[in-house]
């Protein structure tokens, strides 16, 4: 019997027990949030925030992430998921527990600033990202709400889901909004509607287009200083530069560990793959960077990677290495575990995770703001989708070389106009370099456009016709 076409791997009882331990920890963590926030919250929240029910079932993610895996890789996957969910729970607890200090922010502004100001960063897009990972059709009612309000169907479904949450009154009410012109026109414009509906003050950061020089970094850093002044005026937050130094130092330490993991990923077989890499990055370097927890996550991830390497790699019979471009397939996160089991193919790096990691110079407020600006400008999506095409392709081919990738899977989200408009060039550039390219036609958050089964079929057809991968290779797992 299989879940999502993934067959259970044959694992020992202690391995199974270890996964269950993480599942229980996760469930306890989520339920604990309710208890800590009090009876009134427990009474009102399920009605006010129905999506909490989906979050309560987040432990089902363990099926996706651990079912096909064995040994230390399985343990690492379970641990990573548990850490990711625990951190989201922490974030939500701050948002619900102290709305006066909560700033809703777009996913490409530096939350380090908010943390240093004693504010709760609340990444608006987080629900639209995590929801479909847990339940693939999660975003659809919110997408419909946005479309019913007049948003065109062709706009990216992630901002539509986020707008839908606001329109349905299910977005926790923040004190203020901090957003930017990133990562696309749809995302940028969605904040007009959300600002009006939430009726809270909003500051918008302007990130230049040619953001690879000092001139751009200086312009954006000044924008960040202006944002601090604005936040001090509109929220109870006050900038504590020493605190920002601590936050930046923590970010630097987390990055050091992450870079060590990346170094290990160059080895064959890779000592880590899939969700521990991309989900970990999304939560601990994008949504909640600069915390002790983030450092611990990457430090432990490195320890897990070393353990997995000692045991012969995540997939000891690793056959293919996949570079995923564009954000991961939210409606079908099982794709990667499926590819591991079916073809011994590991997904090692994706667009969200692969960004330049300049370390932050903590010498002065100016150097910190300049380097935070650089991180955002060189960060996930911004550099690739909002910048010139050279960024998009040079990073991709660089990572292909760096990690000896065998193929590129482009998660061709129909709503991402920035990347759709590079489709022709993409095909030709891959052909020139002899890199096999799969463009998956689908929608990031809407299963009604292309179902997960259809996504899998596209991958299957590519693997069997282009990569000549043949029949399933994991006969042992299949047999079990």
């Amino acid at each position, binding site marked *: 019997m299989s879940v999502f076409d993934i067959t259970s791997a044959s694992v020992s009882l202690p391995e199974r027990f270890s996964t269950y331990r993480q599942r229980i920890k996760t469930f306890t963590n989520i339920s604990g949030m309710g208890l800590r926030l009090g009876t009134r919250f427990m009474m009102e929240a399920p009605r006010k925030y129905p999506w909490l029910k989906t979050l309560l079932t987040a432990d089902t993610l363990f099926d996706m992430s651990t079912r096909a895996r064995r040994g230390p890789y399985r343990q690492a996957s379970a641990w990573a998921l548990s850490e990711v969910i625990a951190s989201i729970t922490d974030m939500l607890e701050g948002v619900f527990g102290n709305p006066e200090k909560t700033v809703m922010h777009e996913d490409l502004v530096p939350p380090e600033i908010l943390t240093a100001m004693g504010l709760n960063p609340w990444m608006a897009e987080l629900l639209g990202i995590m929801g479909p990972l847990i339940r693939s059709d999660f975003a659809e009612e919110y997408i419909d709400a946005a479309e019913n309000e007049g948003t065109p169907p062709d706009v990216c479904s992630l901002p539509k889901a986020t*707008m839908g949450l606001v329109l349905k009154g299910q977005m926790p009410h923040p004190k203020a909004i901090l957003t930017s012109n990133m990562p696309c026109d749809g995302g*940028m*414009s969605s904040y007009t509607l959300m600002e009006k509906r939430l009726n809270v003050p909003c500051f918008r950061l*302007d990130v230049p*287009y040619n953001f690879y020089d000092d001139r751009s970094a200086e312009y954006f850093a000044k924008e960040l200083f202006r944002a601090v002044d604005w936040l001090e005026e509109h929220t109870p937050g006050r900038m504590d530069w020493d605190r920002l130094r601590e936050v930046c130092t923590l970010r630097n330490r987390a990055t050091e560990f992450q870079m060590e993991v990346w170094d290990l990923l160059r080895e064959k077989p890779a000592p880590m793959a899939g969700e521990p890499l991309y989900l970990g990055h999304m939560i601990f370097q994008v949504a909640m960077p600069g915390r002790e927890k983030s450092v611990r996550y990457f430090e432990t991830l490195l320890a897990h990677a070393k353990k997995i390497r000692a045991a012969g790699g995540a997939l000891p019979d690793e056959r293919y290495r996949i570079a995923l471009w564009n954000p991961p397939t939210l409606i079908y996160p099982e794709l990667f575990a499926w590819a591991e089991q079916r073809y011994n193919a590991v997904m090692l790096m994706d667009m969200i995770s692969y960004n330049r990691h300049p370390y932050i110079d903590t010498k002065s407020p100016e150097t910190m703001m300049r380097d935070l600006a650089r991180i955002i400008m060189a960060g996930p999506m911004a550099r690739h989708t909002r910048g*010139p095409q050279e960024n998009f392709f040079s990073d991709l081919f660089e990572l292909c070389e760096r990690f000896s990738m065998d193929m590129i899977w482009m998660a061709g989200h129909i709503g991402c*106009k920035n990347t759709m408009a590079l489709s022709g060039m993409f095909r030709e550039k891959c052909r020139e370099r002899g890199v096999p390219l799969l463009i998956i036609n689908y929608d990031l958050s809407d299963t009604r456009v292309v179902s997960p089964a259809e996504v899998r079929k596209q991958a299957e057809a590519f693997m069997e016709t282009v990569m000549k991968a043949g029949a399933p290779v994991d006969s042992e797992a299949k047999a079990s």
Partner: protein
Amino acid sequence: MKQPIVLDRVFEEMVESPVNVMVDRALESGRKVIGYTCTYVPEPLLNVGPLFGVRLRAPGVRGTPMADTYLSNVICSYTRSLLELALEGAFDTLNGWVFAASCDHMRRLYDNLDYLQPPEFIHILDVPHKKTPAAVAWMAEELSMLAAKLSERFEVSVDGEGLRDSIARYNQYLAVMRELAELRKRDQPPISGTQFMTVMTAASSAPKDLVVPGLQKLLAALQDAPGIDDYRARLVLAGSQCDDPGYTKVIESVGGLVVADRTCIGSIPGLAAVEEGGDPFEILARRSLTNISCPRMMEEFDGRVAEIVEAVRDYKADGVVLQTMKFCDTWGVEASPMVTELRKAGIPVLRLEREYALSSEGQLSTRVQAFLESMGK
């Protein structure tokens, strides 16, 4: 709707061609043409020495199969149409292209054109999304960098004095066009929306010195012309790039007289005079960024609504046709709260989603007719 005057045929011919007869005439005299694709490119910067700038359009495009292969079919049809015609060689006479990184679609058009058919000269301006003093300073630097690149490539001096002169000449063009637009405020305007849009579109794609005499002649003829009195309602046309007078023609065919256009290529706010004196780069930068009409400009939603409300008042309009091009995310997302705000202000609004090239005329006229009826007209 009876139109009091007949337009000089040259304007209509100019609208029908991607590179019109006046551009050809200027090229024959040894001048050089730079095409641009967005309002945020300040044209006076391109009208220096033998150079002149023209706004690029794609009239007559029939399908975009080649452009779709590269840009995909979820990109706005204005950019796809331009790429299609470029690949067909329709813009081969251009000496250069200047883009603005104004939206995702424009940026990717720039990327694809440069990849598929690198023009002799190509540049993209990094236009801020705000109008703060820092943004104006940034934009002024951008313009100065473009000027240096133009100077080097075309061996012309795009600097202070030349630019000031260019601004003064551009203001002469703007002044005539403004006077033409003012005529539309009359209770019985002597020029229809279709005619005005034809003239405006033709002029935007022509060397200004060559088109101004024709505009002056038209203005003189209109001063004492009888007005249009058989319309059912006065309308403001708002929204994104719309350079096909055919759309206005359909709207007017059922009695909706378009008295003002607040579009990328329309009279509002594009005809406001450019400040003279001072640093021309800073002046042009400020002018570009204080043009908040495109939803790409963040923090300016209320200003955009106010601009339309003001146009309705000034032109005594009965309602607004808010037209957005399919796949344009900035307008697509913003149109919904904008409709809400305009209706709150008591203004009837018809929201239309359309393609760049005129299509579905029957459906369009039915919707406009229903809109007029809903206003009791």
